[in-house]
Structure formats: structure tokens, C-alpha cells
């Protein structure tokens, strides 16, 4: 059974219909990339998966439960990690505390244990030496790696990424994508909104092309990138792939 099932989801902000009818599935261990033009509703879709937005119609089943019907949102969220374009580290605490806070407050872990888990994840993303640094002293790529480690500290079953490299200087994109690739190799279930077509081609098990609040096409990366069926997918890809050159 799929770990995420999105069924006929509809969502508007006021009169602005952002998601008109979205359906897709994510299997356990899969990496699914959401691509599409700006304003097509990718971030909104991702935010709905983490209940940062609610939906108007349809159903989202995650880990066998209808997430819009669960009463304890916080315990749902702890299982679904999210990484944002703007990193969103807590500026009033150092890197280690960024990773420790939710473990202690939400998972009720002892500080010592939480620190060990945090250091382990920081080590995996190459940021252990910065455990006592404050976010304001880090580069964008470093901040994003910490943000990923922070989410992993909750031992989530699913990770959501919303354009994790879009706010980075080009030379830092690689270090962050490598961390995400590592996770893919460890079979973390991930939904990644990205403009990095190379990354989507290399890492995704499935690519979903969204436009105007609809899934216009989905399939394996080779299929979407080499042999797109939908006219708008073709246009979009020729635009972004050209820009990549």
C-alpha cells in the first residue's frame, strides 16, 4: 500500500484556485519529485501534506490515516519532516539546540540522548564541527544541511523538501543535493519540490509535472525528461533545460 495517497485534492486561497484536482501516490522508500512552473501550486501541495494548509476537498491518506481527520496534528507532524527553501533555523539557539529542542519537547527525550542523536545526524551532513555555532554565522548551504539534520533527528518516516536549494549560491547547491541523495540511498521516503532537473533525473523514482493546480503528467524520470507526452511538459522542460545550459 502507498505511504502517501493524495486523492482529488482541491484547494483555493479566496478566489484563487491553486490546486484544482490533484491525485498521486508515493510508495514507501520512493523519491518523488514535483516539478512545474512557478505558481503551479507545488509548495501548496507540499504544505498540505504537512497540514500547514488545509484542503477544501479530496483526501490525503498518509501512513494509513486521513490526515485531515486526525486530532493530534503535532504527533502526525513529528513523523513527517519538512525542509524549507529559507532554511528556517531557530536564530536564538545554536546548531545543536536547533536539533535538540523538538526531540526534548515533542519526543520527551533526555537532553543527553537528544544530543547524541543530534550529533550523529549533524555528522552525517558534515556539520558536527559547527554544533555550537549560531545560525547567523553559517553559509546558506551549511544552514540547509543543519535544517535537514534537524528534521532527521525526529526520526521521520517521510521527508518533504520545498525547493531546498533555490535560495543557495550555486556553489553550495551540490553539498545540499548530496545530502539528499544520501538519504535517497538509505531509502528515505521523500517528496521533493525542485527546479534542479539534473537532480530529479538522477534521484527520483517518479517525477510529477504540475501546472495550474493539476498533475499533467507523471512517470519515471527517463519517460518525463526524454519522452514527455504532454505539450505543456515539453514546453516547460525545454525552457528549464535550456536555462540549465
Amino acid at each position: 500500500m502507498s505511504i502517501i495517497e493524495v486523492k482529488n485534492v482541491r484547494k483555493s486561497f479566496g478566489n484563487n484556485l491553486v490546486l484544482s484536482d490533484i491525485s498521486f501516490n508515493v510508495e514507501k522508500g520512493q523519491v518523488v519529485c514535483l516539478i512545474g512552473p512557478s505558481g503551479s501550486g507545488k509548495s501548496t501541495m507540499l504544505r498540505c501534506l504537512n497540514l500547514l494548509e488545509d484542503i477544501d476537498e479530496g483526501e490525503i491518506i498518509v501512513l494509513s490515516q486521513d490526515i485531515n481527520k486526525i486530532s493530534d496534528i503535532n504527533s502526525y507532524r513529528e513523523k513527517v519532516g519538512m525542509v524549507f527553501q529559507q532554511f528556517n533555523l531557530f536564530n536564538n539557539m545554536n546548531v545543536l539546540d536547533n536539533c535538540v529542542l523538538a526531540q526534548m519537547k515533542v519526543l520527551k527525550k533526555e537532553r543527553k540522548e537528544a544530543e547524541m542523536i543530534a550529533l550523529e545526524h549533524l555528522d552525517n551532513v558534515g556539520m558536527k564541527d559547527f554544533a555550537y555555532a549560531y545560525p547567523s554565522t553559517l553559509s546558506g548551504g551549511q544552514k540547509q544541511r543543519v535544517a535537514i539534520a534537524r528534521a532527521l533527528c525526529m526520526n521521520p518516516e517521510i521527508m518533504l523538501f520545498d525547493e531546498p536549494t533555490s535560495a543557495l549560491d550555486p556553489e553550495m547547491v551540490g553539498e545540499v543535493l548530496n545530502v539528499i541523495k544520501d538519504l535517497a540511498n538509505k531509502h528515505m521516503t521523500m517528496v521533493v519540490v525542485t527546479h534542479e532537473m539534473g537532480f530529479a533525473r538522477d534521484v527520483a523514482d517518479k517525477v510529477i509535472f504540475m501546472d495550474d493546480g493539476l498533475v499533467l503528467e507523471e512517470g519515471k524520470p527517463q519517460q518525463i525528461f526524454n519522452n514527455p507526452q504532454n505539450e505543456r511538459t515539453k514546453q516547460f522542460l525545454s525552457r528549464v533545460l535550456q536555462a540549465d545550459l
Partner: protein
Amino acid sequence: MSLSKCFEILTKYFPSFLLGIRTTLIVALTGTLIGLLIGLLVGGIRAIKLDKTASKTNKIIKAVIDGILKIYIEVFRGTPMMVQAVFIYYLVYTNIVRWDKMFAAIFVISINTGAYMAEIIRSGIQAVDPGQNEAARSLGLSAMQTMMNIVLPQAIRNAFPAIGNELIVNIKDSSVLMIISITELMFQSNSIAGTTYRFTETYFVTAMIYLFMTSISSVILNAVEKKINHTRTSLPQSDTSIESIVIAKKGADHVNN
């Protein structure tokens, strides 16, 4: 006006001035502190954003509370503290309990300051970038935990200059509380002037004492602010405890195979 006369009044009535200073400082300091607590509570509640998925009842309750708090803030910022002091003092005195004047004074200055602090804290909170709030929520922290651990500490830091300014304002404006005859500096000065008939000299001394108290306060507040800002931007000290913590479990127990 003669300076020597000023000096004479100061030395002769020093104990009276000192009592005035003491009362003024007690009222201003406790008023600012309690006001800050009220402000944190009121500003914090006003700034809480319910989840979009919150129930209708909760949304209504929140709206009602917000409305009441808004009225409190408008009333206390929109009327003079002198009027608040006499009104509240006599209201309670004649209808409820014959309360202590000093207690009444601290009560009035606290809720008055609270109204200003609430707005200071609220704008401090709004200056904290909402992304951190979302990140905290996405980790499973509740709205309350997010407010206490992430938003408020940064809001207080942002708002520190304005909070400190309230202390200075209170040192000066507690003078209006003489209207309910507590022995703060202005009240004491009035009695001294009444005995000496040296109004100019007496009030010159009074003004100098106020200036002295506010200057010292700003020096202290500036030092504290520097310290707070320093800890925010200070570079990490190398800390050997990282190395000493044994990483027990290498590898990836977070991966769900």
C-alpha cells in the same frame, strides 16, 4: 534662583528626597516588571495564530479574547495615567476594599505599562520571521511551545530597547501618582516646596534627581543591550565536549527500510 539655596534644600531635606527616590524607584521598577509580564501574556496571546485546521469554537474563543485585550490596550493607552490612578483608587476604595495607596499605585502603573508592553511585545513577535514558526510546527512543537521557546525569546530581544524605554518613562511618569498621595519623589517635593516656599529651587533639585535616575538607568540598559547583542553574534567557542560525547550509534536508524 540660587544654586547655593538648591544645595541647602537638598541637604536639609535629604531624608525626604531619599524617601521620594525610594518610592519612585520601587513603583517604577515593579510597575515595569509586572507590566512586562502582563505585556508578554497579552501580547503573546494576541500574536498566537491558530492553525488553519483549528476548530470553529476555538477560533471564536480566540476572537473574543482578542477583542477584550484590544479594548484593555486602547483604554489604558488612551487615557492619562493620572486619571486612571484616581479613578481606580477611589473605585476600589469606596466599593470593594480600603486598599493601601502604595499597592494601588503599583497596580495602576503595572496595568498601564502592561498595555504599552503588550503592543511592544506584539510587534517584537511580528518581527520574528514566520518561517521559524512553521519550521517549529513542522517538527511537532505545539503553538505554545513554539511561542515560548522560539518566538518570545527573539521577540524580547528585538523589543529590548522599547522595553527599557518603558522603565525610563515610568521613572518620570510615576510622578503623576502623587495624585493618590504616595510618597514618591514628586509628592515629597511638593511638601518640601510647601514648607520652604522655595518653589524654583526645590523643583530644580527634583528635576536633577529625576535626570540622575533616568541617566543611570539608560547607562545600565545600554550595557545590558550590548551584552544581549553580543551573545547573539558571538562566534562559537570551540567546545571540547563535542568530541567527548561518544556517538553511540553510527549509521542510520532513521531510515525506514
